[in-house]
């Protein structure tokens, strides 16, 4: 399935990319498995998305959880805890 991944703020800088549109392997069905797939890239991906690190995930512009199921053409954003206001 093809999805659109967006990265913001500090993670955008560390990953040196703001977006990508990967074709996910068939076994990647949830946010948790997507994060695992990204961690397998190693380096900053493994480091920043490690368990215990603080970051948020949104699907189609709504905050979501690790258990959430992904769908074709979803817009999935990964970003640090927010600091507005």
């Amino acid at each position, binding site marked *: 399935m093809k999805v659109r991944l*967006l990265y*913001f703020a*500090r993670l955008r800088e560390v990953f040196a990319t703001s977006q990508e549109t990967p074709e996910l392997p068939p076994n990647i069905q949830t946010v948790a498995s997507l994060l695992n797939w990204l961690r397998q890239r190693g380096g900053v991906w493994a480091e920043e998305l490690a368990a215990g690190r603080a970051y948020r995930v*949104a699907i189609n512009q*709504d905050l979501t959880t690790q258990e959430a199921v992904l769908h074709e053409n979803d817009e999935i*954003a990964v970003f640090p805890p927010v*600091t*507005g206001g």
Partner: protein
Amino acid sequence: MKITVQTEAFDLDREVRALYQANPKVGAVASFLGLVRDLNEGQGVATLSLEHYPGMTEKALAQIVEDARRRWEVLDATLIHRVGTLHPSEPIVLVAVASSHRGDAFAACEFIMDFLKTRAPFWKKEATPEGERWVDARESDERAAARWQV
């Protein structure tokens, strides 16, 4: 309801007046004005740049205002958040809530700010003579939002 993300400055007086002048049912407007603090504790002037997630930001803010409307009598509300580069003491956010009575106006205004701080996708980056750094999220903001028991 007015919800705006903008780079330009805003006029507090004009925004507040717009909430009550055409509606005689409004008996109270509570407003909160957030300012850029000098986060650098005196070590040279800092500027702040604000990044956001266009689309999700507006959606998240609209949801927060809607949640407030479900809990309190909100006759009208205005929420303006600035993005881009800002300097210490510049206004960064305005939340103003119009209601019949002060209790609902105060509570809804505080509720909106607490959830804006923890749910709306904005990020602050501070630039000082020593370099740039992303501002860390604060645990106290999460506690402030949690006390509303949503």
